[in-house]
């Protein structure tokens, strides 16, 4: 029973690596192609999530649990990057909507 369990886990690890790799390829395709800037930011967010999943699978496969800290840090950085990028998209949209000849008044909210 224990043997079957670890064999099944090994099999799952291979399948999961394959699925994450395919998903990574599709996400990079969207990152390069994405018609709008928001599409690319969505793809970047997804890349961070896939990195976390990859680190999780790697930790299970090698039983090297120190990488878990990397996954948590990656989640934090991914969240902050998404917030900053969406702020950037928002500011760019605002400046485009205003009169382009008028300089930015520098009001921040």
């Amino acid at each position: 029973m224990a043997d079957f369990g670890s064999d099944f886990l090994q099999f799952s690890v291979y399948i999961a690596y394959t699925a994450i790799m395919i998903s990574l390829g599709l996400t990079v395709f969207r990152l390069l192609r994405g018609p709008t800037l928001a599409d690319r930011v969505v793809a970047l967010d997804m890349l961070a999530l896939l990195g976390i999943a990859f680190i999780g699978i790697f930790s299970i496969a090698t039983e090297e649990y120190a990488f878990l800290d990397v996954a948590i840090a990656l989640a934090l950085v991914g969240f902050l990057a998404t917030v900053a990028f969406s702020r950037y998209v928002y500011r760019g949209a605002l400046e485009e909507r205003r009169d382009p000849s008028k300089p930015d008044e520098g009001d921040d909210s």
Partner: protein
Amino acid sequence: MIDLVAGVLLLIGASFSLIAGIGLIRLPDVYLRMHAATKAGTLGAGLVLVALALHGQQLEVTARAVTGVLFLLFTAPVAAHLLGRAGYLSGAPLWSKTRFDDLMDKYDADGRKLGGTPEEALTKPPADRDA
């Protein structure tokens, strides 16, 4: 036994990640793609971390994995909300078959205010506000 459960969770999580990737390619506009990436992607990464928590079988590993899952679940809606709002205000086009756009004409030129005051939003039914 734990290995079996961890393996099944790993397979489900990886499948959700794959579905999120496929959705990112196949869905027609930014908001629908965000629907795939935010929900299916978070669930996929979260299930992999839960599998890791079960497989670790040490307190510090499990605690860190559960912390990671909670962090993902807390931050995903915030990030998705900000991104969707920024995308809408930057004029990302909606799918051609979209039937309702509840935010249409709700923002002024600065993109800051909603069309009505908050009191109006609470007292008036939405049909009156849409005018």
